[in-house]
């Protein structure tokens, strides 16, 4: 009770000062004889006030004492000077500030008992006016006491040192609840799908695309083409986004949803756009979709927050591995070299040579991991560029040539989709080198946002029973599921393995790959 008491003490000081001032003015104006009463009340308040400023003094006792004295003084002097009753409002107020509702009740009763006691003992037959005054000021005191009770709890709560933790806990719990049901809660694609279907329910459309901003441009999140109509509303969508208002060009329309998204579409040509109240319907739709836009925005924020956290963590890990463990293992290698310079026996020399080999191998592995951790799509100009760059690195380290073919449109995929596709491709290339002993790897990357399909094929050992990278395959499949994609693993024409990952489209391999559908897996 020591720390949060200071604001209370200031409030009580203000209240007492104000009432004393009021009483003094009343005494001067009315010219009533209440100087003694004023001095008595002033003296008690000064003592109580000082006690309040000092930590450790029981406020319970102080406030009750205050109430009793004020009650007595008022009871004694009320016959001569009616305005002194105004002092009755202070004890309930200060008690409420210090001790809440209990304090108010205690102070009110103590004050009333003292007041009534003093009145009955001290005088004979008071007039109506006095009783009304007592009643009015007591009720006012009670009201102020209740206000003080509220202040008491408000200040008390904000001063609670655990309050920020409780607040954070609540928020985190909500976040976990939301992301727990990831499919519906914070999955941008699912939320986008919901928006698209509500537009479709409202308007007769032939095609619909939902765009979300990415940097200075828009990237499609969900695409739906009902009649196979050409879906080329990029420009309309961009215009709507830039101007922040609905844009309609002939059959094309685009509706911005706050800043979070733009939904654009082509109206079905079976209907006459003039006959249906298009503008009105779109306005209504925009209003109805406002909450969904907030949901979507939250989901996008959440995923970018998650990506940022992961990327930072990967960079930190890479730095730590490179500066720490990699250098230390390399230095171990030099110690082994020193041993090898003066071997005890030929057998020992062999063993030292073996040890040196192992050390070199471990350094190579660690270096590879650092490279893998360090490369991310973010710093490259496109997914294809990122894949090419990691392919070049891998091919430099392993000596296995990797051919990368890119067919990319300028519109980019969403960052988290790019990141997952990149990791899947990287894992597939790594597997082909490490486990399949491939001598050549072919990577084909076709991106047409929001659709993408990437194939990694090798000429290695193919899928064998219980291959050591089955765990890696499992992770790849999980990553694909995370972005609503599908992963298939098929035997490649050359005898190796072909890993295909597709997003927003069917598993149709790009030109040049004959696929047997046996092992097609839908994740």
């Amino acid at each position, binding site marked *: 009770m020591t720390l949060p008491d200071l604001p209370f003490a200031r409030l009580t000081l203000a209240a007492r000062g104000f009432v004393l001032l009021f009483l003094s003015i009343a005494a001067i104006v009315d010219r009533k004889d209440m100087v003694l009463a004023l001095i008595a009340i002033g003296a008690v308040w000064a003592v109580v006030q000082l006690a309040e400023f000092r930590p450790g003094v029981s406020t319970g006792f102080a406030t009750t004492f205050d109430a009793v004295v004020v009650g007595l003084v008022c009871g004694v002097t009320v016959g001569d000077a009616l305005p002194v009753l105004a002092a009755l409002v202070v004890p309930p107020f200060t008690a409420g500030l210090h001790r809440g509702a209990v304090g108010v009740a205690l102070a009110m009763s103590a004050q009333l008992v003292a007041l009534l006691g003093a009145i009955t003992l001290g005088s004979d037959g008071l007039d109506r006016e006095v009783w009304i005054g007592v009643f009015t000021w007591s009720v006012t005191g009670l009201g102020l006491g209740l206000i003080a009770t509220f202040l008491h709890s408000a200040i008390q709560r904000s001063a609670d040192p655990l309050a920020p933790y409780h607040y954070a806990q609540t928020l985190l719990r909500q976040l976990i609840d939301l992301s727990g049901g990831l499919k519906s809660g914070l999955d941008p694609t699912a939320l986008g799908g919901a928006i698209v279907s509500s537009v479709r329910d409202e308007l007769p459309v032939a095609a619909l695309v939902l765009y979300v901003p990415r940097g200075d441009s828009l990237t499609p999140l969900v695409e739906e083409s009902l009649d196979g109509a050409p879906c080329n509303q990029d420009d309309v969508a961009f215009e709507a986004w830039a101007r922040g208002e609905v844009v309609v060009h002939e059959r094309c329309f685009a509706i911005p949803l706050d800043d979070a998204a733009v939904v654009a579409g082509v109206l079905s040509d079976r209907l006459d756009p003039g006959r249906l109240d298009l503008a009105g319907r779109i306005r209504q739709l925009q209003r109805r979709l406002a909450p969904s836009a907030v949901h979507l925005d939250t989901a996008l924020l959440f995923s970018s927050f998650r990506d940022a956290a992961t990327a930072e963590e990967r960079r930190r890990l890479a730095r730590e591995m490179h500066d720490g463990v990699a250098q230390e293992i*390399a230095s*171990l290698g*030099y110690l082994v070299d020193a041993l090898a310079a*003066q071997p005890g026996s030929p057998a020992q020399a062999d063993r030292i040579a073996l040890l040196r080999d192992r050390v070199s191998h471990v350094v190579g592995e660690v270096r590879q991991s650092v490279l893998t951790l360090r490369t991310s799509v973010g710093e490259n100009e496109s997914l294809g560029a990122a894949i090419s760059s990691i392919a070049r690195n891998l091919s*430099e380290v392993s000596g296995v040539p990797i*051919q990368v073919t*890119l067919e*990319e449109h300028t519109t980019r995929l969403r960052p988290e989709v790019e990141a997952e596709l990149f990791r899947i491709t990287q894992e597939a290339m790594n597997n082909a080198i490490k486990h399949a002993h491939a001598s050549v790897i072919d990577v084909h990357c076709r991106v047409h946002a929001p659709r993408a399909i990437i194939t990694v094929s090798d000429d290695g050992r193919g899928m064998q029973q219980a291959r050591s990278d089955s765990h890696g395959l499992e992770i790849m499949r999980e990553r694909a599921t995370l972005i609503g994609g599908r992963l298939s693993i098929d035997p490649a024409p050359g005898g190796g393995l072909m890993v295909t990952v597709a997003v927003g489209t069917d598993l149709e391999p790009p030109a040049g790959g004959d696929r047997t559908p046996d092992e097609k897996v839908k994740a």
Partner: protein
Amino acid sequence: MSDRHIRVLLVDDHQLIRDGLSGVLDLEADMSIVGVAATVAEALTKYDELSPNVIVTDLQLQDGTGLDVVRAVRKKSNDTGLIILTMHSGDEQIFAAMQAGASGFVGKDAPSSEVVKAARHAAVSPRSFIATGLVGAMMRRQSGESTKLSDREHEVLLLLADGLGASQIGDKLYLSESTAKSHIAKIYQKLGAANRAQALVTAMRIGLLSSIKPADS
């Protein structure tokens, strides 16, 4: 350089690497570590003080890179052997070291005998460059694996060579004009060209095209 004894200055910001490597290099009869340094500034001061025959330097240092050491020393002397010793032995690093004027490039995963070999070479011919990965890196740079054109891009390239513009190409291949344009941009990028003429010349040179009709646009 007068006698065959090689005096080496070792620059690395990792104490363990400095200790390990100097321990093993000192075992060589014709070699001795005359000094160690942890930063670029320290390395250059020690170089002036000790005038070693060979400097072996890490690439990543706290106040700069090993290439800074190489460039600074190379300005003063053509007789000092300069070896880059690094954890990142990618093609780009190899070429960068060569261009800066280094005499050799060794990965930290390689045994110290490689460092010894490179140091001996550097002491004798400091202005020629050796690195284990050099040949592979050259071949990769030549072939440019990742710049292979896709089938669609190849079709577009053939039409470009016929002198068609983006919209005509789009019509022919049933693409929108913007898609055709993005294909053309990708072709330019992959061939390292700034315009149509450069792209076609490069394509001819690397055998992607056999003939070019005069462009009419």
